[in-house]
């Protein structure tokens, strides 16, 4: 006896409307592969490049009431970004990270589309010019890549250095944005 898509959709809709969900998630197709996106009532909370098994991580961080459901605004803005018609995101963000991480990520969000910045320069902007390595750690743990554009942060010599989604993805995002690469 299988639950019909209609009945299933109705349940998910009522569950959300009644505020019974800690965190919802969706899988969004993109030119760089499937993206796992998750949001709380406060806003976008996670983007992962590898969708498998992320539900458990969400449950640990946000609560066990994890439900899959379409995140239309997130999907639309990501689609527009990958189509090249969107250069900044308007999505509300739910950032649950330590204060230093929050400070660095807020500064990161200001790095313009199509431009790159070095780890050291970003460290200097938060008043910690010698903390390039710590900034690297913040980039490495960025909970919302693409929207918080850690792909725009590169090594002092212009090398791409590293990226959670792989260096190839970092390169493709910068190329999409028309950034000058060494």
């Amino acid at each position, binding site marked *: *006896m299988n639950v019909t898509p209609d009945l299933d959709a109705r349940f998910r809709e009522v569950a959300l409307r009644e505020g019974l969900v800690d965190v919802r998630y969706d899988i969004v197709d993109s030119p760089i592969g499937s993206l796992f996106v998750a949001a709380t009532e406060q806003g976008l909370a996670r983007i992962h490049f590898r969708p498998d098994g992320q539900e458990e991580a969400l449950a640990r961080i946000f609560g066990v009431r994890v439900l899959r459901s379409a995140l239309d605004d997130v999907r639309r803005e990501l689609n527009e970004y990958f189509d090249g018609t969107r250069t900044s995101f308007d999505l509300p963000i739910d950032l649950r990270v330590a204060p230093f991480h929050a400070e660095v990520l807020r500064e990161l969000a200001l790095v313009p589309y199509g431009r790159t910045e070095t780890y050291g320069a970003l460290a200097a902007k938060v008043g910690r010019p010698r903390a390039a390595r710590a900034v690297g750690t913040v980039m490495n743990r960025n909970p919302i890549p693409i929207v918080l554009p850690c792909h725009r942060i590169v090594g002092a010599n212009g090398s791409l250095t590293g990226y959670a989604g792989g260096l190839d993805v970092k390169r493709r995002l910068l190329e999409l944005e028309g950034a000058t690469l060494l």
Partner: protein
Amino acid sequence: MMGNVATEPIPPFERFYVAHRDEVLGYLRRLLGQRAEDAWQETFLRALRAYDRLEHGRHLRAWVFTIATNVAMDDLRARPQPQPDGEPSVELRRDAFRDLEHLTGDLPPTERAAVVLRYGYDLAYVQIADALGSSEEAARAAASSGVRRLRRTHERHA
């Protein structure tokens, strides 16, 4: 192998829901027929409302059957219910249940739930008792009474 209470984590609701949504709908259809869909939605909404207060992830299948039974009973109790027959308990073999299953719709609600949980979903009497909000003896008596009633109906139709 049974996990330790402390180490049996509560799965994300999505996994619990996907694992049980179909069989719970099947169960409610057996109890309520066409009215099953509303009861099914109510069952999972009740489960979701209580989900963040669970202390561990054990026995979630029996737990959701308990909720579904409560929802179904609320619906079924609006109708008259004959008393159990008070005779000694009987058990059915699985294959024998398959021959009688189509007749469960004529059973009184408690007997119907007890029989379907026992023979359709293989729950233990202690879990059926939880689902029915009764003692284990009462759950066993309800299932027995239901089985005898099914056999009588079957013989009449045979």
